[in-house]
C-alpha cells in the first residue's frame, strides 16, 4: 500500500461514507519498505491536482514523513516532444524540482508491506499483507 493509493481510499463500510472521520484511513503497526523507481515528473504533476493534501500530510506523518502544510504550487507540466521520450520538465524551477523529488519519494517509493489501516469512524481495521491491503467486509458490515 502506497501513500498515493491511501489518498484515494476511505472506509469501505457504507455507513462510514458520510463521516469525515472515514478519510483518510489511519496507518497502524506499519512496516515500511522503500524501493527506488525512476523519477516521473509527468506523473507527479498530473497527480498533484488529484491529491487531497491535508489527508496526505496526515498519512505521511503516521509513517514518519513531514510534508509542508500547504499544497505546493507546481507549474502544470506540458509534455515536450523530446525525441528520446525522456521525461523532462519544461520550465520547472529548482524549487518545483525539489518538491516533486520529495513527492516522488513519499508517493511512489515508499510502501507499507505489513500493517493495518484503521477507520477513524467505525474503528474497523483493514489488514495489509505483502503490500496488498484487504478491504473485504464481514457480512454484518455489508
Amino acid at each position, binding site marked *: 500500500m502506497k501513500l498515493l493509493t491511501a489518498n484515494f481510499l476511505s472506509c469501505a463500510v457504507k455507513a462510514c461514507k458520510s463521516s469525515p472521520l472515514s478519510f483518510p484511513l489511519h496507518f497502524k503497526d506499519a512496516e515500511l519498505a522503500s*524501493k527506488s523507481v525512476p523519477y516521473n515528473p509527468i506523473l507527479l504533476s498530473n497527480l498533484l491536482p488529484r491529491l487531497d493534501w491535508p489527508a496526505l500530510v496526515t498519512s505521511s506523518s503516521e509513517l514518519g514523513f513531514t510534508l509542508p502544510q500547504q499544497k505546493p504550487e507546481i507549474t502544470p507540466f506540458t509534455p515536450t516532444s523530446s525525441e528520446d521520450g525522456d521525461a523532462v520538465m519544461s520550465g520547472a524551477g529548482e524549487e518545483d524540482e525539489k518538491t516533486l523529488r520529495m513527492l516522488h519519494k513519499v508517493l511512489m517509493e515508499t510502501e507499507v508491506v505489513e500493517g493495518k489501516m484503521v477507520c477513524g469512524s467505525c474503528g474497523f481495521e483493514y489488514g495489509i499483507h505483502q503490500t496488498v491491503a484487504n478491504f*473485504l467486509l464481514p457480512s454484518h458490515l455489508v
Partner: protein
Amino acid sequence: MFSSSGFFIHRCCALIARKKSLCEITFATTIIYPQKRSIITIAAEKMEEASSSVSALPASMQEYLIHFAQVHETFRKPELESLAALFNIEYKLLQYSEKSPFARIALRSNTDAKLLISRSILGKAIYELWGSGHTYPEIHADVKKRTSDLWHLYKTCSFRFSFECYNGNRTEPKKKELIEGFSYVGFDGPIRMKNAQETFTIMEDFEATSIQETDRLAALNLEEKTAVPSCNPTHLDEPHQLYLGRLIGKSSRAVVEIYDLKKRNYIGTTSMDAELSLVTANMAHAAPGKLAYDPFVGTGSFAVACAHFGAVTFGSDIDGRMIRGTKAGKSLRSNFDQYKIVDRYGDMFVSDLTNSPLGRFGGGNGDRSDRIFDAIICDPPYGVREGLKVLGSRDPNRPKAPTIIDGIAQHTLRDYVPPKRPYSFEKMLNDIMNFASIHLVTGGRLCIWLPTADEDTHEFTIPTHSNLKLESVCVQSFNKWARRLLTYTRTSMEHVEEHNGIATIGNTAADEVDSVEEKQNRTANDLNIFRRKYFEGFKTPPSSGDSGGL
C-alpha cells in the same frame, strides 16, 4: 471484487485468442462459424461499403497506406480512431475494408503518420503511398505520375525493396523480377537488407472482391486467414490490387511477442491474451502520467498492458490469492518486475466493487474530487463456473452482528473468508458504469469486455449511462457466443449537475432492479442470463423474462 476464480469459458477464450495471435492458424475454422450479424455489425458494414471506393484526398493532406494485421478486424478501425484521438491527429480514411489488410489514409505529415502507427497493435506499418493499381502497368504509371519529382531525394541513400503478399505468394525469382520493374526510379545508393535508410515495399492483395460478395463475407466473417488460397474458389492467380509505399513508421505489434502469456512469469486461468490486452490499453488511452484502474484485475493482464504504454496502474480483485500469487516469486507484481515496468505499479488491493474503498469523504468536487482515474478497464467475470459473487450473506435475515467463536470475532482473523452472495451480471454492469462515472476524469475512458450469446436468438443491448459516451464496439466471435469490447468516454461535468448528488450521478435503468428480491436465495443462474444460456448450450429462444441487457 466479484469472484473470478476459474471461469472455464473465460479461460477458453483466452486460450483461443492466445493461440490465434501466435500463429493465426487455420484451426480457427473448427470453432468459428458463420454468425448472424447484429444490427451494429450490419450498420458498420454498410458504412464500410460506402467507403470501400477511394475517397478524395483532402487539401493539404498526403496519402498514406496502413498495412494492418488481418486479425481482430472489428478492432482495427476503433484502435486507429482511438490513437488518432489520443495524439490529436487529424486524419481521413480514404479506403478501408475489413477484408483487406491494406487501407488508405490521409494525414497531414510524416510526423503524424509515424506517431499514429507507433502505438498500434493491429496495424503493422505505415507507408507514404507511391502508387497503386490493379495491374503492374497501372501501378508503374501511377508511381511515375505521383513521385517522379521525389526520386532524386533517394538517389544516394541506402535502400531496400521488400514484398508483402496477402492471400497469395510469389517465388523469390518472381519477386526479384517485379522489384526490378521499378528500376526506373534510378536509386544508385547501396542496397542493404538490414538497416537501410529507406524501405520501399511492394504490396499485393490477392483477395478477390466481386463474386458472391454477401455470402462469402458471411462465411469468412472474421477469419479471412481460414480462406487458404488453394481452396478458396474466389482466389485469383494474380493480385487484384497493388501498392508501392515508402516505409514511414512501424507499429508496436512486435510488443505482442514480449508480453506473450506463454513467456509471462505469472498467469491465471482468466488472463487476457497479450494482443487484446494491449489493444484494450490503446482504446483506454493509457499513456505516461495517467492513472488506470482495473476493478477485476485478476492476474493483471490489463495492468501490465497499460503500464507498458506508460500509465501507472491500480487494480483490485475480490480474490486476494490472484494478486498475491500462490508461491514466492509468482505474483501479479512479479510480472511488473519481469517487464521492467515496476515504476508504473500503482497498487493492488483486495476489494469488491459493491463495497469499494475508493473515494473519499466529501468527494465530488474540488480538491476532494473522486475523479481520480484516466482509464478504467475491465473484463468482468462472466460467472459461468461459480456464478458472480459479491460480499454479503445469502440470508437477508442474518443478524447484523459479528460472528464470535471462542470469544474471537472471526473477521479479525487473517485467514477469515467473508461470506459472499450471488449477484446479477446486469447489476454488476450497472455498478461498473456508475463507478466509472464517479471516478473517471473528464475525457477519461472506460473499456469493458462483455460476453454475449449468439445474436441469432438473443438481443444484445449496449449498456448506456448519461455521463458516458459510447466510442466504439468491437466484436470477437466464438462458436455460439461472442465477446465485445465497449469503449466509453467520460463526458464533461455538466451532466453531473443535472442529476445533483453524489450517490445518484447519472443513474441507469437497471438501478431499479428489486434489490430485496435479489438479496434472497436466488441462484446464480437466475441472476446471470449469460451463464444460463451457456449451460443451455445457447439453444433456447429467449423467455419472456429476458430483456437483453447482457
